[in-house]
C-alpha cells in the first residue's frame, strides 16, 4: 500500500477493510465522531488508552489486533468498570502487506465482537516506508463505573491477600520465543484475553475487592511494586505458590529472565481482604480464564514498601522494580 499515485485508491481500500470488519451502527453513521448514550444515573465514566507496538505482529495465541482490543478493555475493566466502547487508530507503514492488514483487522474485530465492546470510531494514517514498523495500533476504551465502587492501586492494606488469576510470564516469553525463533519442547502461547467477563464474575461474588491490575509490561513484579508504593505497604509473596507454566519457567531460566518481570496480557492481580480471599479464588477458578488462580502472598506493613518473595529454606529475596532491562549485577 502507499500514497502518492494510486494512494487515494489505496486509502479507500483500507477504509473498506475497516468498515467491513467492524460494521456497527455507530461506524455506519458516517460522522466524524460517534454519538453514544450517556451511562446510567450515578455511574461514572472510565477511560483508558494504550498504544500497541509489538514484534512480531503475529505470535502463538494472538496478534497485534486482538492484543490491542484486550489491552484496553482490561485497563478499563480492572477499575471495576463495564467496558462499553472502543476507538482505534492505525499507523501503517507504506508497503505493509494488505493480506496481513486484513488478518489483523479481522482479528481485532473478532476480539471486539467476542468481548461485546464495539469499535465505534477510528482513524488510519500511512507513513513512509522506514518510518514505522509495519503497523502500530492505538486503542481507547470507555467504560461505566457503578456508583460507590472504589477499586484502585492505593487501596491495599496490611493483612490483605494477593491473588493472581493464572500462570504468569506466558505472553512475554511467547513473543520473545517467536521473535527469536527459539523452539522449546512445548510451544509457549500468549495469554492475551479480555478480562472483563472474569472480573464481572469476581465482583458479583466478591464486591469488596480492593485492588485489581493487569500485570502487563514489567510483569507481576513491577505491578506489585507500583501497588506497594501507591498504598504505602509492603508485599510478601510465596515463590512456590506463584503459578508458572513449566515451559515458561524453563525458557526464562535459559534466557536468564525472571518470569516475575515478564509481560502478561490476560492475567489479573487481585488484592482483597483476607476474609474474602477464599471466595475470590473460587470465583476466579470457576471462570474459564481463571482456572489456575492462586493466592500468592499477602500485604504487610513495611515502611520501605518492599516487595519480597519467600523462597525455599526460609530465605527471602527482594523483588525490586527495575529502571530498565534486567542488567547483569553479579560481581
Amino acid at each position, binding site marked *: 500500500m502507499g500514497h502518492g499515485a494510486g494512494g487515494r485508491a489505496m486509502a479507500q481500500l483500507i477504509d473498506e477493510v475497516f468498515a467491513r470488519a467492524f460494521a456497527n451502527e455507530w461506524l455506519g453513521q458516517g460522522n466524524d465522531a460517534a454519538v453514544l448514550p450517556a451511562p446510567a444515573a450515578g455511574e461514572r465514566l472510565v477511560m483508558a488508552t494504550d498504544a500497541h507496538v509489538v514484534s512480531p505482529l503475529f505470535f502463538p495465541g494472538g496478534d497485534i489486533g486482538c492484543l490491542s482490543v484486550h489491552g484496553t478493555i482490561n485497563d478499563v475493566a480492572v477499575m471495576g468498570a463495564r467496558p462499553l466502547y472502543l476507538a482505534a487508530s492505525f499507523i501503517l507503514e507504506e508497503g505493509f502487506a494488505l493480506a496481513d492488514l486484513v488478518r489483523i483487522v479481522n482479528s481485532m474485530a473478532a476480539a471486539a465482537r467476542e468481548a461485546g465492546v464495539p469499535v465505534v470510531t477510528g482513524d488510519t494514517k500511512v507513513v513512509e516506508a522506514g518510518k514505522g514498523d509495519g503497523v502500530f495500533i492505538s486503542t481507547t476504551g470507555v467504560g461505566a463505573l457503578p456508583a460507590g465502587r472504589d477499586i484502585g492501586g492505593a487501596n491495599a492494606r496490611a493483612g490483605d491477600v494477593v491473588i493472581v488469576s493464572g500462570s504468569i510470564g506466558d505472553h512475554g516469553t511467547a513473543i520473545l520465543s517467536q521473535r527469536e525463533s*527459539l523452539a522449546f519442547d512445548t510451544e509457549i502461547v500468549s495469554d492475551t484475553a479480555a478480562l472483563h467477563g472474569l472480573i464481572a464474575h469476581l465482583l458479583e461474588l466478591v464486591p469488596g475487592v480492593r485492588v485489581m491490575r493487569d500485570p502487563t509490561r514489567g510483569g507481576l513484579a513491577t505491578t506489585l511494586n507500583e501497588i506497594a508504593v501507591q498504598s504505602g505497604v509492603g508485599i510478601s509473596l510465596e515463590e512456590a505458590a506463584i503459578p508458572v507454566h513449566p515451559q515458561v519457567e*524453563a525458557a526464562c531460566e*535459559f534466557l536468564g529472565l525472571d518470569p516475575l518481570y515478564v509481560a502478561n496480557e490476560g492475567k489479573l492481580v487481585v488484592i482483597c481482604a483476607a476474609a474474602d480471599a477464599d471466595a475470590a479464588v473460587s470465583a476466579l477458578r470457576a471462570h474459564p480464564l481463571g482456572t489456575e488462580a492462586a493466592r500468592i502472598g499477602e500485604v504487610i506493613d513495611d515502611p520501605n514498601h518492599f516487595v519480597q518473595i519467600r523462597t525455599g529454606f526460609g*530465605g*527471602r*529475596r527482594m523483588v525490586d522494580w527495575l529502571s530498565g532491562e534486567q*542488567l547483569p549485577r*553479579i*560481581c
Partner: protein
Amino acid sequence: MAQDFSQPRLERRHIRVRGVVQGVGFRPFVYRLAQTLDLSGWVRNDGDGVELEGQGLPGNLSALIARIRSEAPSLARVDSIHTRLCDADPADQGFTIRTSESGAVSTTIGHDSAVCADCLAELFDPADRRWRYPFINCTHCGPRYTITRALPYDRSNTSMATFAQCPACQREYDAPVHRRFHAEPNACADCGPQLSLLEAAGVRVATRDPIADTLLRLLTGEIVAIKGLGGFHLVCDARNPEAVERLRARKGRGGKPFAVMVANLASARRWARLASAEEALLAGAERPVVLCEKRPSVDNELWGLAPDLGSIGLMLPYTPLHYLLFHDNAGRPSGTDWLGEVQDLALVMTSANPGGEPLVTDNQEALQRLKGIADAYLMHDRDILSRCDDSVMVAERSALAGARETPRFVRRARGFTPRSIRLAQKGVPVLAFGAWLKNAVCLTRGDEAFLSEHIGDLDNPGVCVAMDQAAEHLQRILAIQPEAVAHDLHPDFHSTRAALALADRLGVPAIGVQHHHAHIAAVLAEHRRSGPVLGVALDGVGLGSDGSAWGGELLTVDGAAFERVGHLAPLALPGGDQAARAPWRMAASALHRMGRGADIAPRFATQRGAAQIKVLLDKPHLCPTTTSMGRWFDAAAGLLGVCERMDYDAEAAMRLESLAASYGSALRAHRGWAVREDESGAELDLLPLLAELARERNPARGAAVFHATLLAALEDWIVAAARHERLSTVALGGGCFLNRQLAFELPRRLSARGLEVLTARQAPCNDGGIALGQAWVAIQQLQPGN
C-alpha cells in the same frame, strides 16, 4: 636574677593525644607512666581524645611522650601527639585523673577484642571471684562496638546499662590504677549478665551448668545456636559428619565451606600448615577466621567441611564463653597451662544467617529464625546492639620489597569495626553506600574513613534493612551528618536507591562512582594516595560508564578522574546473570567465540539448555557481554569440567585455584594470549589459552596452566600499559585478588619489572571495600577547585 642550681629545672608540658584513646584504659596507663617517671599533673578525656599536663624533669617528660607512643594499651591506636610548653607550677604535687570535661563527647567507640591474658588467668583461677564467669572483661579486652548504642561511649549508652555494678565491681571501676578503671562492660557473676540454655522449643533447660550441658549436646551431635559478640553462631562438632551434614541441610547451605573453632594454636596446627603470619593472625586480639592451608587430617577427620578446597577457615576462641567450652572439654583444669595443650575438639562455627538473612542478634529473633535449624540455644541477657559478623582474613608473606607480612581481608567486621582508615586529606563528610554483594557502607569524618561491618548481599530484604540501619548507626556513633553521598552506577541496587533517597532528603550532592574506579580508589585511599596510577581491576561484573558490564579493566586514575585504557576481551553472557552461576555457560560462550559452537551440546549434554545455547549465542543482542575477569575464570573452570554449576559465589574460581595448587608449578601456554589495541585501549584476549584448556584431559594440570598463563599475560599487558601511560605505580583491586596466586605472584612480578605495586590491605579487595573507594572519589571530587 641568679639561677638556682640547687634545684633541678622543672618543665611542664601540655600534651594532646589523638587516635583511639578512649575506653581502652588510656588514662590509667598515662597515670602509671607519670607515677613511674615522677611527674605531677593531670590527664582527662575530651572531645578530641586525651589531653594531659605533665610536670617534671625534661628528660622524664620526653620519656613520657616516647612511652605513650611505644607502650600504649593494646586496644589503643595513637595517631598523633602534640605538645607545647606551659608555665611550670612548683606547687603542683602528684598526678590525677580528671573526669571528662563537661559537655565534651568522646569521639570514638572501640572495636571488640578477644578476652585478654590477664582476664584468662582470672577466669581459670578457682580462687578468683570471676572463676568461670563467661562475661569477664577489662579495659584491655571484651566487647565495645557490639554493645554500644550511641556516643559518648559510656555504660549508660551500652547494653550493660541494665546491670548495676555490685560494690566489688564498682570499686574496680572507680580505681584509677585498676585494669577495670572505667571498663564499661565490667561485671561479675553477682551483678552481670547470665547464661541460659534453651531447648529447641524455647523452654529453658533446668541445668546448673549451661556450658557443660551445651558441650555434651555438641559432643552428641546436636546443633546449638550460641550467642557470641556480634551475633549468634550455629555450632556443631566438626568431627561428626552426620551433624555437619544436618547443619548443611538445615541451613540450606550447599557445598560452601564452614569455619572451625579450635582451642589454640597447638590444636590449629593439627588441621592446617600454619605460617608464622597465620599464627599471629589467629592469635591476634581481633581473632578473625583465617583461611589456612589444610592438612590431609581435615579431609580424613573433618569430613565434608571444605570439600574440594585446599584451605580451611580456622578461628580461635575469643569470648570467655568460647574458652569455657574448651575448658570443660579439657576437664576443667586450674590455671592456664591447658591453653597451650592440643585439643581434638573442633567446632563448626557458622554465622547464624540462614537463607542469606542478616546475622541473628536478638534472643527472641533467634528462637523464631533459627527454628528448625538449632536443637538448642545457649544465650545470655546482654543485648547485642550492633550486629557484627566474624572477620575473615588471609595471611601471606608479601612479595613487595620492604613490606612485612601483610594480612588481607576477605571480610572485615568484628575486631576491626569501627576502626578508621586514615585518608591523605580531610574532606567533607561523605556517606558511601557500596554496591550489591558483600556490601558494607562507609562514612568519612575529617581525614578518617569508617567502613561499616560486612552487611551482606542486598538481594535479601532483611539485608537491605540492615544496610539502612548500619548507615544510620555509623552517623550516630560518629555524631556526623553526611554532606554528600556516593553510590554505584548501577541504578537497581538498593544501595544506589538508598543513597539517592538520602541525598534528596538532606539536599546534598549524590556522586555516582564507576564500580572499578571505586575498587582502585579504595586501594589508593588506604595508601593515602590520589594518583596518578595505573589501576588494575580484576573483578566480577560491575556496570561500566558505557553501560556495559566491565570487570577486567586497566584504568588510569588521578584524583577523582579516571580513564579506561584497557580491558579483557569481552565474553558473551548467555542468559545474563544465569551465566554467572553456571560456568558451563561461560565455557559455551568461549567455545562459541572459538567458532566451535557445535562442540557445546555434546560437551555439556547433562546441562539443561545445552542443546539450545548455541542459538542464544548466535544472537548477540540476546547476550550481554562482559569484560569480567571472574567470568574468564568461570569459563576455564567450565571447560576443564572443574565446576559446571556453582553452589556459592566464586566457587568455580576457588576450586580452580585449589586444583592448581595441588598440581604445583606448570608451564604457561605457548602463545596463550594476545593483546590488541582498540578504541577503548589495550584488549587482552585469553581465548588461545582457553582453546588449549578445551583440549586438556587433566583438570589439575589445566588449572595450573591457566594460572601460569594468566599471570604471564597480565604481567605483559600491565607492564606495557604502564609504559604507554608513563606510570610507575599500579594499584590492584577487585574480587579476583582473593585468588592467592594473583594476590601473591602478580605483585612480585610487577615489582620485579620496576613498578611500585599497591594492594588492598586495610579493606577487602572485593566489594566489601568498594564503599571506601566511592567515598575517596567523592571527597576528591568535592575538593575546592575541582
